[in-house]
């Protein structure tokens, strides 16, 4: 029996507006619990919701970026259920008439083959509050309603994904698109991006779906991958041993690296959606949709293609530089007006990435700004410092926040380009290493490297390597035998 997995995802993304979906409470993160609340988001009797126009705009932007059809007519519905994180006892969501339908995201699979993953819908809804359970398992639950009413976009995929790795790649692509579009920061630590997966197995080539299992509580893409790997193994073991699966909701337990059946009293759901009579429909004309389309920034795929062509970079360069829109922007700002962008690209994926890793800094708060990096390159090109010294200068810049010129000045790192000074050292080296010099002259070309090394060593690495090479060659060929000085 050859089994294949069929995977679908539900992604909840918090849209980064200043206020909640239906009231003017702030969406600021980390506020004192229950302080961002009002009659609307507490569901007090008589309070009426009014829709935030920026939630609509960002919802449309995300929809366009995910290649969706934006619906000209959409309606908010009430999704009814009782749970303490939901004071109104219904969540305002979209059901029959979502904002966005029928999109797709292109990814590359493990073998680099392009795949198009369908998006069924991407609709708007409000978030629920946050529950914290007492450490004592018999203790109560605590509610913070600050999150209640925060704007979410729920993205639902078609069952197009086949492997945990594909699911991972898809999530990375979606996150990147949303970050490029700047509709969400997608910080998983802050809970701005949450993923539920469903997975079933079937015999390869078959059209019918198997019994699907939903897995919730996945707080990182790595955990999505792990949970899927575990589920596929578990289900295939059950199927092969002839057991029948029942549809389940499971949770991923990080400590066990396994999914476990959810124990909950809330297994019973019957949401009884109906249009929310407190909210009017949303109608969008083609002109309004086009207006929003014009505000869309360049998306990851387009940017990759353009950067590759414009700067003459390799696929690998582009992959690293465009792994985040912030790095891509950093690169383009650094390379602006600079004639060898490839050099800057190399520097970013070696030195800049290393420095960021070491300092734990975000590229936006990195002391070496794009302008300063370019300045460093200009100083290097001008022969003031060598490439080797440039690394040391760069590290100093990252640590102290100085410009390249300031570091070079303060540390006396200026490259030695004065031929007169270098020539003295070259001659001294030749004199002190007569044996090696003879070897070189008798044809052992390798000896040359040793001599260059000696000159660099004596000048503390500051000598201009090009001049050292020239002078050494000149002295070694012009002066057979030991020279008097």
């Amino acid at each position, binding site marked *: 029996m050859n089994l294949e997995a069929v995977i679908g995802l539900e992604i909840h993304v918090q849209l980064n*507006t*200043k*206020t909640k979906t239906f009231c*003017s*409470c*702030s969406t600021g993160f980390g506020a*004192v*619990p*229950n*302080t*961002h*609340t*009002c*009659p609307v988001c*507490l569901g*007090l009797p008589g309070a009426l919701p*009014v*829709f*935030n*126009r*920026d*939630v*609509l705009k960002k919802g449309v932007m995300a929809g366009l970026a995910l290649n969706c059809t934006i619906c000209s007519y959409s*309606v908010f519905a009430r999704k009814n*259920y*009782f*749970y*303490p994180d939901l004071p109104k006892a219904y969540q305002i969501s979209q059901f*029959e*008439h979502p904002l966005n339908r029928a999109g797709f995201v292109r990814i590359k699979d493990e073998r680099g083959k392009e795949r198009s993953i369908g998006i069924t819908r991407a609709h708007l809804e409000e978030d629920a509050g946050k*529950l*914290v*359970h*007492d450490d004592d*398992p*018999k*203790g*109560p*639950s*605590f*509610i*913070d*309603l600050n999150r209640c009413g925060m704007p979410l976009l729920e993205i639902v995929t078609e069952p197009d994904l086949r492997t945990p790795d594909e699911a991972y790649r898809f999530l990375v692509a979606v996150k990147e698109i949303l970050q490029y579009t700047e509709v969400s920061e997608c910080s998983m630590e802050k809970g701005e991006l949450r993923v539920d997966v469903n997975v079933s197995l079937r015999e390869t080539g078959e059209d019918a779906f198997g019994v699907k299992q939903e897995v919730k509580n996945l707080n990182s893409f790595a955990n999505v991958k792990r949970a899927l790997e575990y589920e596929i193994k578990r289900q295939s073991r059950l199927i092969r041993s002839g057991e029948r699966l029942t549809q389940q909701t499971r949770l991923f337990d990080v400590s066990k690296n396994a999914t476990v059946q959810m*124990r*909950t*009293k*809330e297994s*019973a*759901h*019957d949401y009884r959606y109906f*249009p929310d*009579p407190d*909210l*009017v*429909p*949303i*109608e969008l004309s083609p002109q309004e949709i086009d207006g929003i389309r014009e505000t869309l920034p360049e998306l990851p795929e387009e940017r990759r293609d353009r950067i590759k062509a414009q700067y003459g970079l390799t696929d690998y360069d582009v992959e690293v530089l465009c792994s985040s829109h912030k790095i891509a922007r950093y690169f383009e700002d650094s390379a602006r007006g600079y004639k060898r962008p490839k050099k800057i690209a190399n520097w970013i994926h070696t030195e800049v990435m290393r420095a960021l890793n070491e300092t734990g800094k975000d590229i936006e708060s990195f002391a070496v700004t794009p302008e300063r990096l370019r300045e460093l390159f200009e100083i290097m090109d001008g022969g003031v410092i060598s490439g080797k010294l440039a690394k040391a200068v760069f590290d100093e810049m990252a640590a102290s926040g100085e410009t390249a010129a300031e570091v070079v000045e303060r540390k006396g790192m200026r490259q030695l380009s004065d031929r007169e000074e270098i020539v003295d050292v070259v001659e001294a080296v030749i004199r002190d290493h007569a044996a090696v010099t003879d070897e070189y002259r008798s044809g052992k070309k390798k000896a040359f490297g040793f001599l260059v090394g000696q000159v660099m060593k004596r000048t503390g690495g500051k000598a201009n390597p090009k001049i050292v090479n020239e002078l050494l060659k000149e002295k070694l060929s012009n002066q057979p035998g030991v020279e008097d000085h």
Partner: protein
Amino acid sequence: MKIDGKTIQWVAELSQLYLSAGEEAEMKRHLVAILDYMAILNELDLEDVEPTSHTLGYSNVMRDDIAKESFDVGIVEDLAPRWEKGHIVVPRVV
């Protein structure tokens, strides 16, 4: 739609209500009456009628994304059935 004891118990469970046997019987009587009335409406031929989701006749009522003052947390505390460490306290749900 037929309303039996099971339906009542199911709806009660969804609503997190605990009904006595007497209350269940009373609820059943009410629901049956409501649904019988709906059955009369169901006799209408609505083949060519679009479902109505709104009756107001206008759309796109929106506000700008500008934050306004929220509740003083003391008000939330007063509204809460139980309050501890800045949180509303409820019986454990998991």
